[in-house]
């Protein structure tokens, strides 16, 4: 029983982290029509920022507070330098350029931080475990990570549903030409969306670092899993990404325990099942 419970917790917590990466990926694809293969690199950026900033400041949450604006500026710069040239181009060109960016980011990572894996300390006030439902003990830090992800997810939903910029984001998903014709400079809107997506992925990398350890290529599995989540949830749907990420997290956690020999395919089997029943994804419009 407490194995099941532990796997549920692990699955949800992993799913929530994946959501942070997948939400930006789905918005960039839904609004700007860009397939961004380098999105996992921003998760990696977060993990290494976590390493450096935590060694400087001594606290993971200070690193998060500093890392998010750094990632935002970095994302805005990458959009301006590279991504904006892809909006009018086809998917092949998008995939080529953003794959090239992965190689560049990996090389930069090696030059700056080296290839040695590192670990980031869990803050002392969140170390240890608590007993949950009197059944199992679970690390406090992982619970804090899940809580933080939920807060970020709620904040994002609030922004998208209730604010002016959120209205622009939703409108951009259905008709970006009309957004521009109504007087909104879509260059700035797209830069904001991209940079916000980068910050969210980086935030995931930052808070996950004390759980996972930090190593080269840490973003690659995140990218693949996020792409699966985007497909399952429906392109452009943040709500879909949320549900999809939790499903994937649970499937992954239970797959590892109960079908270890098929662990790596469970996630794709889930994607296939969704595509067969709902080709546009769970919350897609297709």
């Amino acid at each position, binding site marked *: 029983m407490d194995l099941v419970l532990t796997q549920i917790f692990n699955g949800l917590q992993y799913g929530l982290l994946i959501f942070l990466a997948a939400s930006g990926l789905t918005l960039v694809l839904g609004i700007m029509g860009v397939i961004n293969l380098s999105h996992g690199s921003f998760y990696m950026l977060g993990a290494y920022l976590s390493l450096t900033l935590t060694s400087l400041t001594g606290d993971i949450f200070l690193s998060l507070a500093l890392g998010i604006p750094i990632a935002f500026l970095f994302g805005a710069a990458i959009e301006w330098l590279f991504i904006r040239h892809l909006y009018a181009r086809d998917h092949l060109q998008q995939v080529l350029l953003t794959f090239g960016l992965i190689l560049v980011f990996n090389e930069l990572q090696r030059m700056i931080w080296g290839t040695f894996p590192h670990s980031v300390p869990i803050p002392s006030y969140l170390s240890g475990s608590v007993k949950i439902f009197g059944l199992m003990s679970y690390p406090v830090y992982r619970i804090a990570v899940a809580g933080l992800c939920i807060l970020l997810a709620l904040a994002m939903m609030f922004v998208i549903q209730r604010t002016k910029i959120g*209205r*622009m984001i*939703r*409108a951009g*998903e*259905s*008709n970006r*030409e*009309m957004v*521009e*014709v*109504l*007087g*909104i*400079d*879509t*260059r700035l809107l797209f830069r904001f969306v991209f940079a916000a997506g980068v910050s969210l992925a980086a935030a995931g990398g930052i808070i996950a670092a004390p759980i996972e350890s930090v190593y080269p290529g840490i973003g690659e599995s995140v990218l693949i899993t996020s792409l699966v989540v985007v497909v399952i949830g429906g392109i452009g749907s943040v709500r879909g990404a949320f549900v999809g990420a939790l499903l994937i997290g649970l499937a992954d956690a239970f797959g590892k325990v109960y079908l270890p020999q098929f662990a790596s395919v469970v996630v794709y089997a889930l994607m296939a099942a969704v595509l067969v029943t709902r080709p546009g994804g769970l919350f897609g419009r297709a």
Partner: protein
Amino acid sequence: MTAPVLAAEKINTYYGHSHILRGVDFRVMPRETVSLLGRNGMGKTTLLRSLVGLVKPRTGHVIFNGADITGNRPSFIARAGLAFIPEDRGIFPNLTVIENLTFAARPGRGTRPDWTLERIYSLFPRLAERRTHWGNELSGGEQKMLSIGRALMTNPDIILFDEATEGLAPKVRDEIWATLRQVAATGIAAVVVDKNLDDLLALAERHVVMAKGEIVFDGTTQVLKADEALIHRHLGV
């Protein structure tokens, strides 16, 4: 002599290699409603898209309120006071009626009282009833009304309206024409494209007819009505 609110000066617009607009001169005076006519594929939509910045004329100039806006971004041109309602209405399906209306609401330049939600709702009571519905839950006629309301909420100096009543039931058409009269009476200039000659003759004082990317007629209702050959040749009636 007053200056036009909007003018195209000898514009040539291309789609790729196809030369679509061929040296078009076009102007709209303040407060004026102009109808834009012509058979299918003659370049009416392309002219409107060139005026709002969605396509850039290769040569020639677009002047709006005295400023050269050729090649500016559509968002810049929109904020300068030019509103465009495309043929497909461009309603955001995943925004509610209120959200569509307030999406781009901004104050005008103070020459006329600003449009508010209340004024839009009294112009279109139907929109008030449906204010919390999603854009894609509206009928075609309601979407047209919403697209007009949304354009008005930007408090423009001029509205370019492509295919104003296409695909609407006769009753709804009459409603749209009546509204456009009310809007014109507030002093907003307008360019209206439609297929229905009689309705346009009743709406506008000046009419511009396009054929193969050129302007073949520019004159008053009286002159156009009298020119049966031109009507037959270019408007197919």
